[in-house]
């Protein structure tokens, strides 16, 4: 007996069914979301709409400027530059979709966990694949349209292109998006054949995080104010290289421009070739991907454990470095265990590591900026009072301390603030073991404190050497940093206990709600308070003409007391919560 009357054999109705299912899941999630999340989603939608309008207006205005006579002074042939814009947009859209589709298809095909269910249901396999590809590319396609259409339409209006140009822009972007997704699905299968999908996702996440932070921050290192007209002109002309006669993407862009300008023969020819090629590649990649997936080709990893020799574990007694032996003697077993385990997990889980690397990159960028400025305060217009300039000069002596503590602050919000949460569903191992609260806290404290302190010291030592800071100032700075980092670690750890969240699948998405945000802000304020107590007296006594030693001593006592209070008191307040965590 079967309750299924007619198996869904129609491809497009099946695709529609699957996409509608996605829509239902999204709507159901929206309906069940909290009110603030609903408001957030609506606001985001409105913001995106506003971005679309603003992008269109800006593109239109900018592109009108591009065709102005003034531009000819910088760019010798502005028409050629304008004609290259569609090529640039189309190429960029293709590359972006190709890269992002890789990650999204990896998730949709191998990590979402619904493929077995979908393939065992009475739906055509092609429909499952098509819906998965749609699911992967639709968000990016929408973004490409959001940013690409205003530029291309703005160009069309500013250049007076004919009407056929506009629908063809949409058609070209759509087909190229499908092609990129098709190629991405094949690449995904090729990669998954060699490496486990989960590992690939982790590496990808790590690379994306690093590249994003590098791209967003590297702009600070550029001297854009000093760029000459020739350099700008040269940079703009370099973009023309994208318009290579052998690139199908260039054919698409030039075809669009030709159609827009009414050069029908060359326009239709270029576009027809591109569209046929795109359609062909998409069809071939779709059917190949289907076959590879269904045959299990991509699921059988070539790097199996077969043939791999079991590593012979060297005797720990004879090979352990002296520093570990020292740790063994100094620290109780549970503290040592937590320390060793957390360092291993943090180092190996690229998803966590990617978030810890961000402060490191920021540190390097700020160090370069500080050294480049030579440790001098900003001169302004030069009419500031002498006292203020002296205070500023004194403060600049400690600028590297401020930067190193800023890096520590951002690192600790993750390392200490999420220390307990990072245990996740594995927390039962610690909770069911005979580990007392002080030892557990000590372990978690050291996990956050030691790497942050080492990073801080390295940063401080390098910048101090480059700035030729005196030895007494350096020693004082090191002590101040050591104590302040301890205080901020304790505070963040306490907030981490209150907002602990053990229910998560991806460490990048651990939510600690408002408490996590509050902890970040409060620790920022407390950091400033510590800095004030440590360095306020030093600057003040220097202004009063007293010997520096008195300023250092007063600062050490005041700052040290503040730091120790921050380290101990918050943890003392939350001590009762620790034994009942994860209940």
């Amino acid at each position, binding site marked *: 007996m079967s309750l299924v009357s007619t198996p869904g054999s129609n491809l497009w109705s099946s695709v529609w069914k699957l996409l509608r299912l996605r829509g239902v899941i999204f709507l159901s999630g929206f309906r069940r979301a909290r009110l603030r999340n609903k408001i957030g989603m609506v606001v985001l939608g409105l913001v995106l709409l506003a971005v679309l309008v603003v992008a269109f207006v800006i593109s239109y205005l900018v592109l009108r400027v591009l065709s102005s006579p003034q531009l000819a002074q910088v760019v010798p042939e502005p028409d050629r530059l304008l004609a290259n814009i569609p090529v640039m947009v189309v190429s960029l859209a293709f590359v972006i979709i190709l890269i992002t589709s890789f990650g999204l298809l990896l998730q949709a095909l191998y990590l979402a966990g619904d493929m077995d269910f979908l393939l065992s249901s009475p739906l055509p396999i092609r429909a499952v694949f098509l819906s998965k590809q749609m699911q992967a590319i639709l968000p990016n396609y929408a973004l490409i349209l959001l940013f690409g259409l205003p530029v291309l339409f703005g160009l069309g209006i500013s250049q007076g292109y004919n009407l056929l140009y506009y629908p063809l822009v949409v058609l070209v972007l759509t087909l190229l998006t499908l092609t990129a997704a098709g190629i991405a699905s094949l690449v995904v299968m090729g990669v998954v054949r060699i490496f486990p999908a989960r590992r690939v996702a982790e590496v990808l996440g790590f690379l994306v995080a690093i590249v994003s932070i590098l791209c967003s921050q590297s702009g600070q290192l550029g001297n854009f104010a000093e760029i000459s007209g020739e350099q700008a002109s040269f940079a703009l002309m370099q973009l023309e290289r994208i318009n290579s006669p052998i690139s199908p993407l260039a054919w698409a862009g030039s075809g669009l421009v030709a159609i827009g300008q009414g050069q029908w023969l060359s326009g239709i020819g270029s576009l027809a070739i591109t569209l046929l090629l795109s359609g062909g590649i998409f069809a071939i990649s779709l059917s190949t991907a289907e076959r590879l997936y269904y045959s299990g080709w991509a699921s059988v990893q070539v790097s199996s*454990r077969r043939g791999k020799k*079991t590593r012979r574990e060297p005797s720990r007694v004879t090979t352990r470095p002296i520093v570990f032996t020292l740790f063994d003697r100094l620290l109780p077993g549970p503290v040592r265990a937590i320390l060793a385990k957390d360092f291993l997990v943090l180092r190996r889980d690229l998803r966590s590591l990617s978030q810890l690397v961000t402060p490191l990159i920021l540190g390097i960028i700020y160090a370069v900026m500080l050294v480049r400025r030579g440790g001098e305060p900003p001169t302004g217009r030069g009419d500031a009072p002498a006292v203020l300039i002296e205070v500023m000069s004194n403060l600049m002596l400690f600028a590297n301390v401020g930067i190193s503590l800023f890096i520590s602050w951002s690192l600790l919000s993750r390392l200490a603030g999420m220390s307990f949460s990072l245990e996740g569903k*594995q927390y039962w191992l610690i909770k069911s073991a005979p580990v007392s609260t002080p030892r557990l806290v000590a372990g978690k404290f050291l996990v956050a404190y030691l790497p942050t302190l080492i990073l801080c010291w390295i940063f401080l030592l390098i910048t101090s050497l480059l700035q030729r800071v005196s030895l007494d100032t350096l020693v004082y700075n090191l002590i101040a940093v050591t104590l302040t980092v301890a205080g901020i670690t304790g505070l963040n750890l306490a907030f981490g206990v209150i907002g602990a969240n053990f229910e998560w699948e991806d460490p990048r998405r651990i939510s600690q709600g408002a408490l996590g945000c509050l902890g970040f802000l409060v620790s920022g304020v407390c950091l400033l308070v510590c800095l004030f107590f440590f360095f306020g007296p030093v600057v003040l006594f220097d202004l009063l003409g007293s010997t520096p030693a008195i300023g250092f001593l007063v600062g050490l006592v005041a700052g040290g007391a503040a730091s120790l209070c921050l380290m101990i008191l918050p943890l003392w307040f939350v001590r009762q919560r620790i034994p009942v965590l994860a209940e």
Partner: protein
Amino acid sequence: MNPNPNSTLIQTRDLVKRFGEKTAVDQVTFQVSAGEVFGFLGPNGAGKTTTIKMIVGLLQPTSGSVEVAGFDLQEHPLEAKAVCGYLPDTPNLYPKLSARELLRFVGDLYEIDRDQVERRSKELLRLFELSEAADDPIDSYSHGMQQKTALASALIHDPQVLMMDEPTVGLDPRSARMIKDILRQLAERGAAIFLSTHILEIAERMCDRIGIINEGQLIAVGTMQELRALGKGETSLEDIFLSLTGGAEYAEIAEVLK
């Protein structure tokens, strides 16, 4: 480990756990002696896992008390936990550690001598046929391998009390048999074994005594003979279980599927 065979290693008294208005465990009292294998049965959502979690110190009871090897869990939690090994129903282990690293970690948590941890790890990894994969990350293991790794970590400190929540789920017959043999041996050496299971055949064959929990209340405790006396003429554990916990709904389901 060779405690007095008659000594009580697990003792719960009027154990209650409430989650808001729902009472998950209601006045549960029982004891398990050294050398005894105690089976804990009950339908889904009856309160088995909650009871186990309270005994191993993962959940604080709303009221009542738990004693493990004579140590009150509220007053001496560290001493009680030190003699207890726990295997959860879902083996959530650190995915980025290898089995060997996990055993070292657990060994250090229990403050066992390093050399002893190495020796025990080697033995347990060999016993559970994990030696070859001992240095691979746990996230590359199958469910069965993860279950065996979790069991190895529960045994690393040679516990006097072993608490196991569905120990044979996801294991192949060979591994399941091995676990049964290990449990028997541990009991013979004087450990108290507490296991919850849905496989009544395991409970019937392995357990010296059986407790049946339903809707948070312990409705029957005793040996198979004592349970048979409680049942209305039923001889198999399955019939006794269904008669005590209500099995009419299962017949109804079968009717729908016909």
